[in-house]
């Protein structure tokens, strides 16, 4: 149960975005991918659940192993892969449905429940897990777009969790939120790592410092350094990592 990239190269049109990436992301931990803007963090994340397929002119070389299976070339069932890997994007993006509908959507398309009662119970459970259930009591069937941004982001998390994934990808999931919501979501991720493997792209070093078990530092499409957070933050081996951590560039 892990995600592993082997000799991964990604090109978009003529740009070489990811260069020979070799990493293994340990399970049931939070791995933070850090690095300056445009270094390929998001591309790497989008390769893991193959959302990158919808980008124009994309070419992928090498392997990405999810649970030991190569997802790039094996002709793996892409919808099952995406169910297994939840995604929380940068800006919360509720579907044009009610709050209930948002969480139930994934369960419905994956045909998880036969009875409506089970579905309702499942939706409530997931909303409770992200601390939304009490906040939205009685507003279950109002449009999701009316929630605050922070609430929307937690709703998106609940929506991802509802399809029972094994991995959660978070692409700067807290960057659009106010400090309090941001803290709530961050704490949620920490509490979720017992059950899920979490891979988080983050822009803020301090966030990575707070929650990461593992850190991957990327620069210009290459993985410069990867390892346990303690080691990377306290004793970075590479000069570039040292400079980045010291704030020489961001």
């Amino acid at each position: 149960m892990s995600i592993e990239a082997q000799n991964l190269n990604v090109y978009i049109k003529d740009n070489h975005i990811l260069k020979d990436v070799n990493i293994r992301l340990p399970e049931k931990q939070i791995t933070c991918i850090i690095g300056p803007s445009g270094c390929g963090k998001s591309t790497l994340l989008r390769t893991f659940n193959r959302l990158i397929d919808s980008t124009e002119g994309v070419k992928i070389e090498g392997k990405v192993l999810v649970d030991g299976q190569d997802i790039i070339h094996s002709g793996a069932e892409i919808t099952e892969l995406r169910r297994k890997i939840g995604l929380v994007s940068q800006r919360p993006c509720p579907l044009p449905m009610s709050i209930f509908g948002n969480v139930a959507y994934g369960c419905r398309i994956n045909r998880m429940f036969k009875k409506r009662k089970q579905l309702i119970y499942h939706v409530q459970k997931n909303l409770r897990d992200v601390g939304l259930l009490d906040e939205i009591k009685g507003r279950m069937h109002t449009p999701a777009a009316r929630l605050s941004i922070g609430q929307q982001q937690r709703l998106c998390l609940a929506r991802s969790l509802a399809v029972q994934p094994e991995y959660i990808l978070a692409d700067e999931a807290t960057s659009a939120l106010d400090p309090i919501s941001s803290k709530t979501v961050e704490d949620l991720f920490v509490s979720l790592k017992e059950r899920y493997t979490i891979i988080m792209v983050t822009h803020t070093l301090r966030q990575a410092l707070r929650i990461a078990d593992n850190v991957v530092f990327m620069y210009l499409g290459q993985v410069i350094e990867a390892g346990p957070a303690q080691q990377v933050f306290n004793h970075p081996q590479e000069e570039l990592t040292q400079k980045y951590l010291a704030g020489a560039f961001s």
Partner: protein
Amino acid sequence: MNIAHKKKLKESVAKLFMWTAILIFFGIVASVLWTIFSKGCKAMSWDMVTQLPGGGFYIGKEGGFLNAIVGSLYIVGASTLLGLLISIPVVFFLNVYLKKHSKLAYVSRLAFDVLFGVPSIVYGAFGFTIMIYFGLRASLLGGIIVITLLIIPIFIRTMDEATRNFPRDILEASFALGATRWETLKVVLRQIAPGIATATLLSIGRAIGDAASVMFTAGYTDSIPTSLSQPAATLPLAVFFQLSSPIPEVVDRAYAAALVLTIIVLILSITGRFITNKFSKNKV
């Protein structure tokens, strides 16, 4: 004259232009409505909308134009449904399946723009030729098909406009949950519901008011069609035929038919708006 003064003058001139334009526009709308209502009400009666034309209807004797009302509703209802069935998949394909700069999408949009501009008489002539080829006579089916062809470009162009700005994030959010593109259609439909409603209203407006395309294809009859192969009367043709009559009573009835046509469009527009508001409450 100082600058501030000049600016003020420019502003007032611009304002004057806008007000004149708006007043002219309202004047036109009001005079059209006034003509239809004042002339139409003279001949309007309960019989007009509940009776079929009697023996001497077209020389001013008893009867009504229920045949045209029902015929128009049949044709518009059926062709709107058919139009939706055909255009929704097209719009979905253009916006979700094809890449953003796809050549096929470009050519298709160009084609629909051309079709959009084709006058309805050309559709009528086209339908007529096809019908002759297949040995069909003017019929309800012929009218439905030609009207469907007429409104498909309106449907597609209007819905396409509404869908092109569809947030990519929503698509990805749906895909990320393991949805196929087909399953994502449900999400897209919910988001563009207002666009679909607008498209439907525009299409119905065009479909119900068009005389040229149904003249040769649906024909005209004094009875209500009971099968697809029978000819069907339509309101625009009821207006057209009666308006060209030398008998004043019959001409008044043309205005009554126009009044009914206007009221139907009005009712559809208002309910359409109402339904749209209901559907679009979940829009992100």
